[in-house]
Every structure is written in structure tokens, then in C-alpha cells.
């Protein structure tokens, strides 16, 4: 097993810069997720690590070896592809063994290794089938097996679950997590699914337009997003952004918003005293308050010191455990998350508590976090 270091990696196609200097340092055994929308450069970066794309500038190393000029087969990596890329003309067993065969591993050893991996993935009964005779989930397992059998230093995953249906995706996600725990291998995983990223990663790197926006643990990404892009990308339903102005209050600082309740607009002063140091320079200026839906909940049950007020509910969406309430603040939709048992809407209005200590504040000009 080995560490993975990416130093100022740049990728250019002609004049188009797809990656604009990426720095990532991965420890041995760490699970990194590259998260971003399509075209952000995450797959390009993965392919550069794999050696399927050349590195225009910068260095990529595995352990203490710079691998820019090392052929993919000599990099000691394995990759799982989105389409699985199983060789259609070979049986499952041959698919898994192919990499070993190419490396000149003798047949008996090969067979033993294939069998071991197949047992680990519970597909030893499928070894003689062709990929076309397998279900989507089984194909996915074969693709994993093909990567596992070589015991590489680094595993690369390119959106491996996006072709599966929702239930299987959940199962395989857990499986991958379990594998990571067991093998304790270095893994790089590309996805556009933020839930996959949050559940799997030790650290997440969020990419946009070829640049890393934030590289941090899932909790930090979720609670302390560095800018509005990250805040909007991670979390479902996404964070509410409320544009307002900072003002001075008796206690410290606040921001006034208009909340519709009982058929009329009411001014409410959101308390920003918890964020005094960051908002002090912004008195009288515009800011954006970011509130996750779970920071706006039913009044009267929170243990934290919170402020509460009435707000009209436009629509409710029951998700089972929670009910999402769509409110109207400053003329914009705002989503609140309420425990199902507590959604008591009387004449279209309900009392909500807001936990301002969990708010993220952003500068509307730069869209970056105020800290």
C-alpha cells in the first residue's frame, strides 16, 4: 500500500485547460472521493493517475516514485469503470485472470487467486459465465474482482455505481466501504453523487472548472463549506441561501428578513451574534446566510438556544422520517426539515426554530465563506 501525491497537476488539450493545477496529498490507506458535476475535470484527473491520460504539467507520485512517465501497467493500480468494461468474449474467470495472465503469473496461481477473490465477492458460482449472462449487479462485482485480484497499491473507481438501480447502488456502496476497511488500501473514487461522496470518503475533493474548491473530511465539507458552490453541491435537499443585510443590534449583530405568516409579511431579525467576528466588517452590507434545512425545524424541541417565529408553509413533502416544509422568506423558497410527528400546521402557519449557530455566512460578491 502506498501514498498518492498529486503536485500542481495541469491538463491542457490545445489551449483548453481542463485541470488548472491540482494539489492533493493522500495518505496510505485513505479513501478520497473526487466530487463534481460532469466536465469539472474529475475523470480526467483519475485517468491521469491511471496513466490513461498524459500529465501536461506537474507531478503525480505513488509512494516515493513519480509515475508521470510510467506505463499504466507498471503503476501498480487497478481501475473499476463506469461501464464495467468487462471483456465480452471471455468468461468471468478469464476476465478476472486477464491482468494476472498479462503479468505472466503461472496458471495454477492465477486460478487460486481468481477463486479467492470470487469467494470474497460471493460469485464463485459465476466463474464460467459470460458477462452477457450476468445482471448489472453481478457485472459490477466482476469488475471489482478484476481490480481486487491484482492486489494493487491504489484502487481507482470511475463512477462505478452510476449504472445500477437505487437499491443495488446502496448495497454496493456498503460493500465498497467494507472492502476498503478490510483491505485498508488507498482508493480514489470519482462520482457526481454527493451522498456517495459523504458516505464513502475519508476526504472529499470538490472540483469545479478544473480547480479543487475544497479538500476536507465529509463532516467539514458539510458543516463548513468554503464557498457557496460547495454549500450548494453537498447536501440534499440543498442548503438554503438567504440574501440579506447585516445590522448592529443590542446584543451584537443581526440580519432582517421578511417572513410570510398569517397572510402578511413580518420582519424578523435573525441573530448573528454567534458569528460576531466574521460579520463585524459587514455591517450595513449585503451578505448571504446559508442555512441547511435541518437548521430550521419545529419550535420547542431543540436543546440548543435558538430563536423561533411563525412562518407560513406553502407545501409539505413527507419523506418518511422527516417532513420537508417549503416556506417563503424574503420572497424566496426556503426549505425546513421537521420531524414527522411534529409537523403541526395550523391555518397554514407553524412555529419554527432556527439554529443560527449552524449557519454559514457568505460574501455575495466572492461567494466565499466569512470566517
Amino acid at each position, binding site marked *: 500500500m502506498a501514498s498518492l501525491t498529486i503536485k500542481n497537476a495541469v491538463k491542457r488539450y490545445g489551449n483548453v485547460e481542463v485541470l488548472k493545477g491540482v494539489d492533493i496529498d493522500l495518505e496510505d490507506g485513505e479513501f478520497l472521493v473526487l466530487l463534481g458535476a460532469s466536465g469539472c475535470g474529475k475523470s480526467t484527473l483519475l485517468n491521469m493517475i491511471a496513466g490513461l491520460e498524459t500529465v501536461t504539467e506537474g*507531478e503525480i507520485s505513488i509512494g516515493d*516514485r513519480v509515475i508521470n512517465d510510467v506505463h499504466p501497467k507498471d503503476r501498480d493500480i487497478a481501475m473499476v469503470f463506469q461501464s464495467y468494461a468487462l471483456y465480452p468474449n471471455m468468461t468471468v474467470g478469464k476476465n478476472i485472470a486477464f491482468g494476472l495472465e498479462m503479468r505472466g503469473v503461472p496458471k495454477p496461481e492465477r486460478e487460486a487467486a481468481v477463486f479467492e477473490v470470487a469467494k470474497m465477492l460471493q460469485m464463485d458460482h459465476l466463474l464460467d459465465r459470460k458477462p452477457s449472462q450476468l445482471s448489472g449487479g453481478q457485472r459490477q462485482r466482476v469488475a471489482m474482482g478484476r481490480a481486487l485480484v491484482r492486489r494493487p497499491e491504489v484502487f481507482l473507481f470511475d463512477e462505478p455505481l452510476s449504472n445500477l438501480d437505487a437499491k443495488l447502488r446502496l448495497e454496493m456502496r456498503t460493500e465498497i466501504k467494507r472492502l476498503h476497511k478490510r483491505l485498508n488500501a488507498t482508493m480514489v473514487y470519482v462520482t457526481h453523487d454527493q451522498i456517495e461522496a459523504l458516505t464513502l470518503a475519508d476526504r472529499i475533493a470538490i472540483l469545479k472548472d478544473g480547480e479543487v474548491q475544497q479538500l476536507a473530511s465529509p463532516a467539514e465539507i458539510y458543516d463548513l463549506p468554503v464557498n457557496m458552490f460547495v454549500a450548494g453541491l453537498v447536501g440534499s435537499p440543498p442548503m438554503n441561501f438567504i440574501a440579506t443585510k447585516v445590522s448592529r443590534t443590542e446584543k451584537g449583530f443581526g440580519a432582517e428578513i421578511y417572513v410570510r405568516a398569517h397572510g402578511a409579511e413580518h420582519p424578523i431579525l435573525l441573530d448573528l451574534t454567534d458569528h460576531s467576528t466574521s460579520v463585524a466588517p459587514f455591517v450595513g452590507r449585503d451578505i448571504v446566510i446559508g442555512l441547511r434545512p435541518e437548521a430550521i425545524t419545529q419550535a420547542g424541541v431543540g436543546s440548543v438556544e435558538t430563536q423561533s417565529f411563525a412562518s407560513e408553509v406553502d407545501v409539505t413533502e413527507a419523506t418518511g422520517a422527516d417532513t420537508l416544509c417549503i416556506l417563503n422568506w424574503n420572497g424566496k423558497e426556503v426549505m425546513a426539515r421537521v420531524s414527522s410527528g411534529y409537523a403541526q400546521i395550523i391555518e397554514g402557519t407553524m412555529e419554527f426554530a432556527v439554529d443560527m449557530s449552524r449557519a454559514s455566512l457568505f460574501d455575495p460578491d466572492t461567494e466565499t465563506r466569512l470566517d
Partner: protein
Amino acid sequence: MTRPPLKLTDRIARTLPQIVVAPSFALILFFVYGFIIWTGYISLTKSKMLPNYNLIGFRPYERLFQMDRWTVALENLFIFGFLFIFVAIVIGCLLAILLDQKIRAEGFIRTIYLYPMAISFIITGTAWKWIMNPSLGLETVIRSWGWESFSFGWTNSESMAVYALVMAAVWQSAGFVMALFLSALRSVDQDIIKAASLDGASPWKIYLRIILPSMRPVFMSAVVILAHLAIKSFDLVVALTGGGPGYSSTLPANFMYEMTFRRNEIGVGAASAMIMLATVAAIMVPYLYSELRGKKHV
């Protein structure tokens, strides 16, 4: 940190695709593009029986266009090309639409329509020449049935010989056009047809307004391929009419062959070949360009 350089074997492996493509590409470069230049050069010389490499400018082209045989060949190409393309597409399209009506034994009928495409134009020409035989052919049979004025001896008539070529060429190619259109008809998105019939469109309307317009690309392909076939037509003329009577049904391809191999007028032959190339290029280059453009490199 160590930074191992690219291994020599890997460096060779990296250029392997180019190395593999090289022989084919070299063959095409030499035998197609090199030869075009070569022919172009000869077309500017006064080569007679053997190539002569002294340039004399465009005189062979002037001589070419002064020759009645060439003018006739060009006129014939125009008539032949236009009628051949038009009739083959009309018949091919008609047959495709008819066959698309859930016909029993469709596969069998299709096989009959398409088999001429498998045989040589030489055979097609020989067969139709026999059918058009003035004393023993179809004409005599039909006349013996009582239609006294029926005339099918086209190959022996200066005015009709070109139409004999059109008839035989359509016979050979209509099935191909049908196959093209049929596969296009079958690939029309069935959801669109369902949506249209839910909107109340009659089957006839669906054909005219939705299916046929969506076949424009196939239509274009058919026109281009048939035009290309028409310009290249050589063997059909040789076998069916021999270019005659006289040179009344000669086509440019036959003219070129005649000049080059029979009449020791290599310079003029090369000039006629260049004109043919220019004609094909005028059709193909815009077509290929529009086909390849917009398609992302894969």
C-alpha cells in the same frame, strides 16, 4: 523521490498505432493521391501512345472539349445520371414503403429485389442485351402476342441506347436503394409514431409529415452513392451497348478507356479522367464534409 523515465519498450509501444496505420496510409497516399497528381501531370502533356513528360499546358483539355465523342459522353452522363438517380430512388423508395406494410414473405421478396446488386454489371449488360435482341428478344415475343408496334430493341437505336443503360442500371440498383430506405424506415423512433397517431394523424399523414422528412440523410446518401455509381459506370456500357451504335451511348469512363488503351491518346485520356475526378469531388467533398463535421472525434 525517484522519477523513472519512460521505458524504451513503452516509448515504442506509444507510437505503435502510427506505425500500424503507416503502411495502409502510405499505400493510399501513393496509389490514390500520388496517382491523381501523376494523371494530372500527364493531362498537361502531349502524351500519345506512351507517357511523355513535356508540359504543354491545357492543350489536351482544349482538344478534349473539341471532340464530339467527349461532348456526347458528357451529355449522356447527364441524361443517364439524372434519370438513373431519379428512377432508382423513386422505385427504391416506393418498394421500401410498400414492403414496410407488414407484408407476409417480406424477406423472400426483399431477396428477389436485391439479388441484382450481387452480380457484375457485365452480367447485367449481357443479360439485358439478350433480352433486347431485335430478332429473338422480348420484342418478338410481345409482338407475337398481338402488340405489333411494341419496340424493345433499344440497344440498336441511337436515340434509345442511353435509356437501355438507364433501365439496366436501375434494375441493378433499385433494390439497393430499397434496402437503404427500408433500414431507415425501421429505425424511425416508434414513440414518435405512437405520439403522432395519438394526436390523430392518419397513417398517410404520418408517412408524409414525420417519417419521410426524417429520412433526408438517407435520401442524401442514396443520391450521392448513385451519382458516384453513374460517373464510374463503365462495364455496363461495355456489355450492353458497347457505347454504340457508333458512339451514341458512350459515357466518360468509356471515353477515357478508349482514348488511353485503344487510340493512343493518353494525354486526352488523362484529361478526361481529371474532369471525372473533378465531377466526383464536386459531389463528394461537400457531402463528406457535412457528414464528418459536427461529429465529435470519438
